[in-house]
């Protein structure tokens, strides 16, 4: 019917245009909320989710209770749903869309599927029409026919779909997220809002995960805490370590540091329903045999300190400087996160007895300054930087550093660097970009760095 017709029948009808993007975003959000039931959640666009709950039903008190809880959670998130639990994904999908059954045990699946209309095959409309005209109304009728005959008459696809529906062919779903290598989770009977209780629960989960990793002989380098709120919102926290770790106390300490440092603190809302701790990036760890009377191994290595600082301030804020073999000062060094880098060797530029040739700190980008210097390549006599005029007392240079021609091209300007010291003893690293006479425009002067 048309919109005007509908408006005529129902006064105060709420109308909104179709927004596919928002619908897809809502579906993803609901998928995240559904992760509390199982880590394997797949999307079934445009309006469905497929959950692989093999082995999860006992946590919720049985399959029927699981279906009820899932529908209740979605209802709290503001969405009305139909759900069906079956033995294969294709059958579950067809049953939920084309029948009213809530839960189908494996033994009854064949009978239930046989009762589905042929529209459940989701073929082209012409094929469905052709099936109806041929008198085949439901899947049970089709099941009795030889598949070769059906494929010859209606196309090859129909045989595959029939096999999938009947459970002769079992496809796995494609989950949204790769399932974690090792996880421990805790579901609360009632939503918990107190952060102290959450931390106590995290402690037990850390012990469980640590024990599981120890039995496997591995340690994890990345730990993910997922908090499922009662209204469907999901909060994730990640903690990374430099060395593989399976000590529960260390993991918990890093998580506590992370919780304490969040810019947007964790908001319990009406409480958390479930908590999951998963470990990723597993790497083998050699076990150390300690003596019975030895004190416990202290957590005092440099990498543990780096992990704690990384958890508190962010992984990208704890850095190691490493050098590269480039004469361009901007590319001669770089900083990498300390958790990734090993200790690099250090190179020294000036020979012994000479003052430092490179400044302690560098401006990025260099600051333009006004300088007065002898033409063509004398050091500056006086320069003005940050509105202060400096009279140069001592200067050394020029040190010519040309741009890397294989990177910047032949037209990149050459820089002549000077080490200058002013009357007060402050030492600067300046450069003149461009040569008098050869490059167009007057050469320009810049301040690049400061010496001690």
């Amino acid at each position, binding site marked *: 019917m048309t919109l005007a017709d509908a408006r005529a029948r129902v006064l105060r009808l709420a109308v909104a245009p179709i927004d596919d993007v928002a619908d897809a975003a809502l579906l993803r959000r609901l998928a995240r909320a559904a992760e509390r039931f199982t880590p394997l959640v797949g999307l079934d666009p445009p309006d469905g989710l497929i959950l692989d709950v093999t082995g999860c039903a006992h946590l919720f008190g049985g399959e029927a209770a699981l279906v009820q809880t899932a529908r209740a959670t979605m209802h709290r998130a503001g969405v009305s749903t139909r759900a069906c639990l079956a033995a294969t994904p294709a059958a579950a999908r067809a049953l939920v869309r084309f029948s009213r059954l809530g839960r189908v045990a494996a033994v009854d699946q064949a009978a239930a599927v046989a009762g589905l209309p042929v529209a459940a095959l989701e073929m082209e409309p012409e094929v469905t029409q052709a099936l109806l005209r041929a008198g085949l109304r439901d899947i049970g009728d089709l099941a009795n026919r030889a598949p070769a005959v059906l494929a010859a008459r209606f196309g090859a696809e129909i045989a595959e779909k029939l096999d999938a529906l009947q459970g002769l062919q079992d496809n796995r779903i494609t989950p949204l997220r790769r399932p974690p290598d090792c996880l421990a989770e805790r579901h609360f009977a009632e939503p918990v809002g107190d952060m102290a209780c959450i931390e106590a629960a995290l402690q037990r989960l850390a012990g469980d995960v640590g024990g599981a990793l120890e039995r496997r002989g591995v340690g994890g380098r990345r730990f993910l805490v997922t908090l499922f709120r009662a209204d469907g919102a999901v909060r994730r926290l990640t903690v990374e370590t430099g060395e593989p770790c399976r000590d529960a106390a260390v993991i918990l300490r890093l998580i506590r540091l992370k919780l304490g440092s969040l810019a947007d603190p964790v908001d319990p809302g009406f409480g958390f329903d479930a908590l999951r701790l998963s470990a990723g990036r597993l790497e083998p760890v050699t076990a150390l045999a300690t003596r019975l009377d030895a004190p416990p191994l*202290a957590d*005092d*290595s*440099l990498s*543990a*300190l*780096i992990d*704690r*600082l990384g958890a*508190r*301030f962010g992984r990208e*804020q*704890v*850095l*190691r*400087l*490493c*050098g590269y073999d480039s004469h361009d*000062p901007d590319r*001669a*060094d770089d*900083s990498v996160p*300390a958790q990734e880098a090993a*200790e*690099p060797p*250090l*190179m*020294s*530029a*000036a020979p*012994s*007895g*000479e*003052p*430092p*040739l*490179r*400044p*302690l*700190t*560098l*401006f*990025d980008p260099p600051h333009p300054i006004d300088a007065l210097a002898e033409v063509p390549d004398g050091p500056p006599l006086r320069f003005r930087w940050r509105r202060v005029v400096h009279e140069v*007392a*001592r*200067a*050394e240079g020029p040190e010519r550093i040309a741009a890397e021609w294989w990177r910047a091209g032949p037209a990149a300007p050459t820089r002549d660097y000077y*080490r*200058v*010291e002013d*009357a*007060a*003893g*402050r*030492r600067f690293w300046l450069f003149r970009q461009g040569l008098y006479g050869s490059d167009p425009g007057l050469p320009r002067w810049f301040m690049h*760095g*400061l*010496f*001690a």
Partner: protein
Amino acid sequence: MNIRHASALPSVAAPDVSLAGIGLTRRALHELHAAGSAEASAALGCALVLLQAFAGGRPMLWVWHEALEREIGRPFLPGLADLGPGTQPPVLVRVRRTGEALQAGLEGARSPAAGAVLISLWGPARELDLTASRRLALATRASGTTVLLLQAGAAAAPSAAETRWQVAPAASRALAAAAPGPPAFHLRLLRHRAGLQQPECCVDWNRDDVSLTLRGRERPPLSGAVVPAARLRAGAAGGDGLLRRAG
């Protein structure tokens, strides 16, 4: 028979580091002040030399307040390498606020893995009061780490630091053809917990053994044994007879 417990034996103290004739104890908090951005890079150079001396080969932590980048620029590794042969680059922790810098410094001070920690701040730090500095000092004593606090662009606040120095750049001894020589600094001891005094002095950077040599203290080379000048080096106590070192 008198059996002594291991804890009752006197521990062999690690040799202290001396700066301009004053001995600096290892397990303590030391402060360096720079008046403004013009003096900040000089103070940073001094602080890095002291950091290498206190760490003595162990890992170093450098807490970098990002506000310093606007004033003096970002740390440059070849410049750090030019501090002297065999210097190791420290682990750099970048923070946005002074409170975070103090927390990072405290975390480093509490860990026995770090040999020395340098906290470099720009501007007035509200969180740096007597309590915070006392906490840092206690942490250094417990774990054996030394903490250097470099404050630039702020007035000195009361603190529990062992010593407090003011650093300013000084004209260097020129090399041939009026080239700038090795960096030189003016050092002034503002405060010492034991009450020692030291007039303002000038030190030169000695690159070969990563030390700061007092200017005016070097004696001309004698035939025969050479008397070593008072210099900043791990293992040599700064004794020139004028100053009494307490503790």
